[in-house]
């Protein structure tokens, strides 16, 4: 609930700034976005994830899954920031970077299984 109040107050401040001093408006909007993102992560998302992970701490790969979903979401939020400023191509670059990071991580996890499987295939020959 507190987060929604914060968001509404910041929205009001933004509208005020837009009317009073429109030249600085976009920069302050981006700053406010990161402030809100910080609040969201530290107040809601991270505590929620920790609670979720504490229930399933013995199950492997849950933490990696949850955090890669979070990482993807943050990446897509930042890319929408770029798109709002009409820098669509830079936003796409951010998304590509996010995808590559996720792929690299999961590929290294997967590589051990692949090498094991190929060793079994070698045994069969």
């Amino acid at each position: 609930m507190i987060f929604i109040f914060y968001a509404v107050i910041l929205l009001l401040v933004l509208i005020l700034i837009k009317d009073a001093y429109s030249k600085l408006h976009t920069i302050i909007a981006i700053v406010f976005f990161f402030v809100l993102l910080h609040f969201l992560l530290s107040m809601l998302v991270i505590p929620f994830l920790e609670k979720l992970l504490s229930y399933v701490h013995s199950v492997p790969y849950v933490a990696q899954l949850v955090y890669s979903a979070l990482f993807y979401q943050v990446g897509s939020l930042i890319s929408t920031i770029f798109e709002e400023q009409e820098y669509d191509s830079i936003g796409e670059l951010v998304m590509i970077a996010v995808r590559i990071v996720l792929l690299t991580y999961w590929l290294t996890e997967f590589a051990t299984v692949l090498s094991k499987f190929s060793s079994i295939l070698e045994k069969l020959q």
Partner: protein
Amino acid sequence: MNEILNIFLDPLKIAGQSILLIITYTVIFLSIEAYVPKFKKWADTLFIVVLVLTLGQTVMDAFSLMTQLAGIFSNFFLALYPIIMSLLVILNSVFSFIAWSPIIFFIFELLILLCERILIPAVSIALILDFCTRFIGEMSFGKASDLIRGSVMTIITATVLAIVTVLSFTGVAFFTIDKAIADPVKKVIEQTIPIVGSLIVQGFSIFNKYQSTATTVAGLSAMTAFWVAAFYPAGKLLIHAMTFKILAAIIEPFSSSTVSGLVDDVGKSLLVLCAVAFLLGIAFVFIWLILMVMTQLGVGKTF
């Protein structure tokens, strides 16, 4: 005693563990999709990756178990042939009686070769094809893997039929046993276990002929030990395969058809592998039974 119990409990433990694991993953993925809807495409792929990472070990264990088993059996048979053959020569009075032995040995040798060189690689290739079908999406190798599994099952059934035919043709069926008790049990097994059920029943009916004679030689406990040793791998694989089938049934309503289809396909492949292990088990028990019968003949007992 504890260790023996563990041998039987371990596959069940793994089965329960993987069922719990999959239920947790389904819940996690459902909650991730609820919070991050954009992640759905990735989540579907990651679900498969996580399945492979966690349950892959079980499948690998199953395959390495089978390769080890085939190796052990081929060594074992090779070691046993000279003994049986020398027994044949020493007991030349009964040589005519068991004149079918060379054919049986030929069939067993062929069986081992078949398992080691063709059946197990074929099942693993079917598994890889299934994985590619589900993972790549646009390309489907489903027909190919079904074909491979079907032909492997055909080969297995044909081999079992060949063993039965040769045995009854050459007049081994001189040990008669009352089948009235065994029949209802067989029907139940045949109907409850999907693919391999009829195979197991077929095997039982072969052993019925031998069981009574061999038991008098080796004693009941020793016979039980042989049975357990021969069919423990097959039973373990059967539990693994049924686990995958159950998992596919559990997750089907909650996840994409890709994931449940992959799990189901893995279950099918493991069932075929279980049939291969069962075939090896039949061969193993047969060799022992033949040895026992010959020893008995050599000692001079009559039936």
